[in-house]
């Protein structure tokens, strides 16, 4: 499965997005600001996670009219979110011609047991994860890109760090396993032997690994890249801040040059107020999005 042509094309697009920033946008004007600031793709949404969090209620796929208006205005890839397990929303997004579908915990899940069978689609999927098992179950279902979940709409990086560290240590552990240990590992993680063999031999995931949920500053972006993210998703962090244009550019520079600390320091100057944020530790259980999906 990992090596077939369909997967090669899907993973191929994810490869092209590496070393960049993917920004949540809700209007064509924001999409243009994101593209001009150097975003590699935009996530077309009706509401950004911080708004979804504040509004409460059921969060669903965005209005197709918003997605189409954003597709018209930018030449970079346009992504959109469907609810976990809501394959009909995914079919609709594929019909709209979005370039990537995010089966996302930020929206209210439609199925508590099954995620979308992503092998049935021509459009590639990105899925969130909190640990190596979750990541590999999504890859087994056909995800071409994994992003650690973090805690969306908080502006607090702590969960993003926790999830990225968990995935990275999982990769290291599998890389060190012997051949005779792989079947038991496949059973315990609920993923395929083919995927585990790939990691055991290559010491990395068979698909790119991005980071999401909580990035609000250039230093946050540099932190996630240093922890092993290959690109960062920035949701509420840009358009909930006081000066989105400036902040967007600064986060892009800090992602490209994440090891150039003079540069990251320079672009961090005078960015205005960041998003206000919610401290993760103070969220109630119902407010946590990362626990959605398994």
């Amino acid at each position, binding site marked *: 499965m990992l090596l077939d*042509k369909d997967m*090669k*094309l899907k993973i*191929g*697009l994810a*490869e*092209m*997005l*590496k*070393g*960049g920033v993917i920004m949540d946008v809700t209007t064509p004007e924001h999409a243009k600001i994101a*593209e*001009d*600031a*150097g*975003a*590699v*793709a935009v996530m077309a949404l009706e509401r950004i996670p911080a708004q979804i969090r504040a509004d409460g209620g059921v969060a669903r796929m965005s209005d197709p009219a918003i997605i189409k208006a954003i597709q018209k205005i*930018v*030449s*970079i*890839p346009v992504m959109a979110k469907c609810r976990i397990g809501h394959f009909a929303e995914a079919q609709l997004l*594929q019909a709209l*011609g*979005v*370039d*990537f579908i995010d089966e996302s915990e930020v929206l209210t899940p439609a199925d508590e047991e099954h995620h979308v069978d992503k092998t049935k689609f*021509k*459009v*590639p999927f990105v899925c969130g994860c909190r640990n190596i098992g979750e990541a590999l179950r999504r890859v087994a279902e056909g995800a071409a890109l994994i992003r650690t979940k973090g805690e969306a709409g908080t502006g607090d990086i702590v969960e993003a760090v926790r999830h990225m560290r968990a995935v990275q240590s999982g990769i290291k552990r599998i890389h060190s396993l012997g051949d005779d240990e792989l079947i038991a590992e496949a059973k315990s993680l609920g993923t395929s032997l083919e995927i585990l063999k790939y990691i055991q031999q290559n010491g990395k995931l068979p698909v790119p690994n991005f980071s999401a949920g909580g990035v609000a500053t250039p230093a946050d972006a540099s932190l996630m890249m240093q922890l092993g993210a290959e690109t960062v998703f920035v949701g509420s962090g840009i358009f909930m801040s006081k000066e989105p244009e400036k902040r967007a*550019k600064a986060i*892009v*520079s800090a992602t*490209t*040059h994440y090891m*150039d600390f003079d540069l990251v320091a320079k672009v961090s100057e005078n960015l205005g107020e960041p998003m206000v944020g919610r401290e993760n530790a103070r969220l109630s259980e119902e407010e946590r999005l990362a626990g959605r999906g398994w």
Partner: protein
Amino acid sequence: MTTGILAIQGDFEKHQQTLETLNCSTLLVKDKNHLQQCDGLIIPGGESTTLVNLLKKHGLWQSVHEFGLQKTIFGTCAGLILLANRLVHNRLDSLSLIDITVERNAYGRQIDSFIDTVDLQLNHKKLNFEGVFIRAPKIVDVGKEVKVLGRYQQSPVMVENEHIMASTFHPEITADSCIHQYFIEKVRKNSHDRS
């Protein structure tokens, strides 16, 4: 001899892996100092709009242009768009290093991406190559000085001139490294001619 890979954004790691299988010494290029150490450069696939923005912002645009006037550059997909002299209906600037006209995203969106056989002609040899086309551009016009190295359904998809090589597909995603081998020989020949 060192071959640089522009590592501002895109699938630079895939190019690096391919070059390493050919025992080629590589350098990920993020600034002018890196570029100065290179004999050849690859501009990888990625997002052309993003690459143009970032090259300009980090003061690399002019340096890459000057590099390409003397040394060898290979651009794949977005890299080809950056190198082309002209773009169809487009506001994006280009480095103007090879006399071709290019249309971006000419096959459509990601659902129209495809893999199919490309007919190559390298060093007077005909070869079949697995062409991975991802949101690929099309070369719609080729100038007199430009040689066509690869075609897909008769249309040019890989071209070269004295210093520059460019393809609309992604040879770095295919296991066959013959195109990268050809590029390294071109870098070697050009640096030999200069010295």
